[in-house]
C-alpha cells in the first residue's frame, strides 16, 4: 500500500533520516523502533506529509504521496499524533465526530453518528461520549483521539486504509495498551495497513508483522519481527538482552539483562 524508497530528510545541520526504505502492505502492522532521537517521529511526519523528504520517493496506492489531494488523502489515511492541544471545551463525541469531517460537507448524516458511536465503543469510551474532553485524563483523551482517527477511516465499502500512529499507547495503562494493540490487529485483519511508532519491544514483538529499526536516522533493519534479536537490540539501544520462550504463549519474549 505504501512504498518508501531511499527517504532522506535533513534539517539545517544534519540528516535526521538517511536512505530509509521500507514497504507496508494491506493487512500488515509495521512497528518503527529505535532509541530517542533515532528519527521515528520524523519518519512518521515525512509519511504524513507534515515534512517533505529531501530525497527519495513515497508511493501511496500506486500514486506519489505528494500528488494526492489533501481531502482525498484524508479519507484514505489517518494520523494519530503524540500530543493534542485542545483548548475549547468540546465533548468527546464532538472530537470523535471531527474524524468524519472528510466525509460530509456541512452536517453529519445519521450514518456518521452511528460510525462515531461504534468507534467510541471500540476504544472503550462510549460512557465518556458527552464528557468535556478537557476534563478527561491523559489516557482517556488519547482513546478519544484514537476513536476520532478510527471514525475518519471507517468505511464499509473499502477497508484498505493507512493508519499512522505515533506512540499510540505510551500514555495508556497496561490494560488499554493491550486493548488498543489488539484493536490495531483487528484493523489489520480488516485490511488496514498500520505504521506505528512503539517504545515497548515486547508490544512490537507481540502485535506487529514487520519491524523497522532506526538508529541516528539510518535504517538498521527492516523485515520480519525475528530481526528484533540480541544483536540488533544491542546496536540500536546499546543494552544487552535475552529472548526467552514465553511461559504461556507460543512466542518469544524479550528481557533486558545487565
Amino acid at each position: 500500500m505504501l512504498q518508501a524508497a531511499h527517504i532522506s530528510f535533513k534539517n539545517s545541520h544534519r540528516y535526521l533520516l538517511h536512505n530509509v526504505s521500507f514497504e507496508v502492505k494491506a493487512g500488515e502492522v509495521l512497528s518503527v523502533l529505535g532509541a530517542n532521537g533515532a528519527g521515528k517521529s520524523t519518519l512518521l511526519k515525512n509519511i504524513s506529509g507534515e515534512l517533505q523528504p529531501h530525497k527519495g520517493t513515497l508511493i501511496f496506492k500506486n500514486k506519489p504521496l505528494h500528488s494526492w489531494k489533501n481531502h482525498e488523502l484524508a479519507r484514505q489515511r489517518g494520523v494519530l499524533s503524540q500530543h493534542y492541544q485542545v483548548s475549547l471545551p468540546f465533548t468527546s463525541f464532538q472530537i470523535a465526530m471531527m474524524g468524519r469531517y472528510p466525509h460530509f460537507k456541512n452536517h453529519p448524516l445519521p450514518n456518521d453518528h452511528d460510525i462515531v458511536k461504534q468507534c467510541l465503543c471500540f476504544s472503550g469510551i462510549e460512557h465518556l461520549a458527552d464528557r468535556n474532553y478537557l476534563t478527561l485524563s491523559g489516557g482517556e483523551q488519547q482513546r478519544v483521539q484514537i476513536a476520532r482517527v478510527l471514525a475518519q477511516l471507517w468505511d464499509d465499502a473499502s477497508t484498505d486504509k493507512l493508519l499512522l500512529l505515533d506512540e499510540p499507547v505510551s500514555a495508556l495503562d497496561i490494560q488499554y495498551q493491550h486493548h488498543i494493540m489488539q484493536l490495531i490487529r483487528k484493523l489489520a485483519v480488516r485490511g488496514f495497513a498500520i505504521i506505528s511508532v512503539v517504545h515497548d519491544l515486547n508490544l512490537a514483538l507481540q502485535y506487529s508483522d514487520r519491524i523497522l529499526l532506526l538508529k541516528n536516522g539510518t535504517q538498521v533493519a527492516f523485515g520480519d519481527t525475528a530481526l528484533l534479536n540480541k544483536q540488533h537490540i544491542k546496536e540500536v539501544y546499546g543494552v544487552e538482552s535475552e529472548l526467552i520462550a514465553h511461559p504461556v504463549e507460543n512466542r518469544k519474549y524479550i528481557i533486558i539483562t545487565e
Partner: protein
Amino acid sequence: MKPAVLVTTLTGILLVAVIISAGLGALSVSPLQSIAILLRQVGIHLDVPYSDQQEVVITAIRLPRVLFGIFIGATLAMCGTAIQGLFRNPLADPVLIGISSGAALFTVVMIVAGLQLFAGLFNMIGAYALSLAAFAGAFITAIIVYRISQAGGKTIVSTMLLAGIAISAMAAAGTGIMTLMANDAQLRTITFWNLGSLGGANWQSLGVLVPVCMICLVGLPTLSKPLNALVLGETNAAHIGINVESLKTKVIVLTALGVGVCVSVSGIIGFVGLVTPHIIRKLIGPEHKNVFIASGLLGAIILVIADLLCRTIIAPVEIPIGIVTALLGAPFFLYLLLKEKKTQIVF
C-alpha cells in the same frame, strides 16, 4: 441548552430590545407606537395613533442607530468567535490583540491626512475610503499578531496578548502624532473614534456598514467546520482534510473586513468580541456553527442595550459606548484570567 432554543430566545430578546430602544429617549414613544411606526415603513398599517414628529425621530434618528447596534454588535461578536477559533484560544479578541487599534490608527490617519494624501481615492470611493483604511489597518495588524504569536503550530498566549499591547501602544503613538496635526473638528472625531460611539449613525453610513457586515455575517459561519477541526492543531486539522492556510486567510480577511468597517463608523468598541462567545459557549458548547449564530444575536442585543444606556442614563449627555462595554467587559476579562490560572488549560 439546545442551540435552537437559545437562538429563538435571543431573537425574541433582540426584538424586544429594539422596540424598547426605539421608544426611549428625549422624545418618548410607546412600544406599541414604535411597532406601528416600524411596521408602517414596510407597508403594514396598525390602528395606533402617533405624531409625525415621533415618526421622524424613529425613522431618521433612532432606527439607524438601533440598526448600527445590531450590525456592529453581531459583527464584532462573530469576529471575536472567529479570532478565538483561529488562535485556538478563548482569550483572543480583536480589541485585545490590537486589530481594532490598527484599524483605528489607519482611520485616524485617513481623517487627518487622507484628503491630502489620497485625494484621488476619496473622489473615487467617497464614504468607503475610511472603511478601506480601517480594513487595511485591521488586516495588517491581524497578520502581524498571528505571525508573532505562533510557534510550532501553537499559540503562545502571553506573546499574543503582549503583541496586542505593543501594537496598541504603537497605534496610540501614531494616533497621538495625528492629534498634533489635527484641527479642532478632526480632534473631536479622533476622540470619538478612540472611545467608540454609535452617535454617527445615519442611513448613509448604514449603506457602507450593512453590505460589509453581511459579508462577515454570512461568510464566517461557513468556516465553522474547519474552525472546529482547528482545535486539534494545524497539522492535525490538515490530516483530516482541512486546508488550513486557506482557512487562516479567510478568517483574517473576513475579520479585518468586519472589525475594519465597524471601527470606521463607530470607533473602538471593546470586549463585545471577547465576552459574547464565552457566554454562548457556556450555554451551548463550543461547536462553531451554533456559537457564530448565537453570538451574533447576543452581540447585537448587548450593543443595542448598551447604546440605550449610553444615551439615556445621564441625558442629554451621551456616554461613549466603548466606555460602557469596557466597564462591563474588563472585569469579565480579569475573571477569565483568574479562571484560566486555576485550570491551567490555556497557560
